[in-house]
């Protein structure tokens, strides 16, 4: 019962969070000021996600592990303009290689 209650409430809450913006803003174009903020939301959230996905532990705390090597491999692949699928394959491969030696 506890589990089903949690699932139902989490599903409803998530749907409400995701609906809020699309319902509240309607089709109206945002103001120029708001547009400038929105344009910076993508780089901000993506930078935070890169950091979070690289060093998070699932709970509170930082963990520097083989994911950093994967991210370094990805950086290099992006720098030399390899295709996205190669970028993520190299990241996974480098991370797995480090873990197999560790």
């Amino acid at each position, binding site marked *: 019962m506890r*589990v089903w209650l949690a699932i139902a409430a989490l599903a409803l809450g998530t749907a409400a969070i995701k609906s809020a913006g699309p319902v509240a803003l309607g089709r109206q174009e945002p103001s120029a000021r708001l547009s400038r903020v929105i344009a910076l*939301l993508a780089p901000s959230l993506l930078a935070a996600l890169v950091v979070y996905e690289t060093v998070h532990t699932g709970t*509170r705390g930082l963990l520097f592990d083989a994911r950093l090597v994967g991210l370094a491999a*990805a950086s290099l692949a992006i720098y030399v303009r390899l295709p996205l699928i190669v970028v993520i394959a190299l*990241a996974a491969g480098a991370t797995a290689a480090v873990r197999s030696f560790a």
Partner: protein
Amino acid sequence: MSSSPIRAGVRAGLPLALPVFALAVSFGALAEPAMGRLAPIVMSAIVFGGAAQFASLSVLAAGGTAAAAVAAGLLMNARFLPMGFAAASAFTGGKASRAAQGQAVVDASWAIASRGDGSFDRGLLLGATIPQAVGWLGGTVVGVLAGSAISDPGRFGLDAIFPAFYLALLVAELRTRDARAAAALAALIALALIPIAPGGLPVIAASAAALIALRSPR
């Protein structure tokens, strides 16, 4: 409604189907002992959010209350609030239809659909979510049934795919000086908060870096 932008979105989201599937397998395998077989599958179908589901699961598995599990999950998903406001002008139709389209907002699809100027491509956003939804639900079913034998996505480096993917999308966003400044500030905010703040909060707080747009002349 033209289907070709949605098809382009499906193609853009396809590289994520495998890592999402693998992550979902580990979710299903970890959830089964704590939640039974049906509940994790239903959860993946109607919540559809990896980080939130793992957060709720860790509370439930530790014997926490439903309220604590919901709070942990909603904190993870709160980042979809700014993302939904940002993408709002891309959606079409009445309120119910727009709310329904808003459910397709997940990290990778939102980032793929971002054009870099504050506008979003509706077809890419909706399309890119489809392979991830298939991978997430399918992986959960496999994980619940197969159990812990295949529950470690780390072994194949699959957990490094997400930061690599977001980094590639981030680089494409760094065209202006403001974008680079906001990204650097956001990364610092996240790094500073990860050790002290509960899951989800560092990423939401980092979105405040976008407010530097209000200060700069252009």
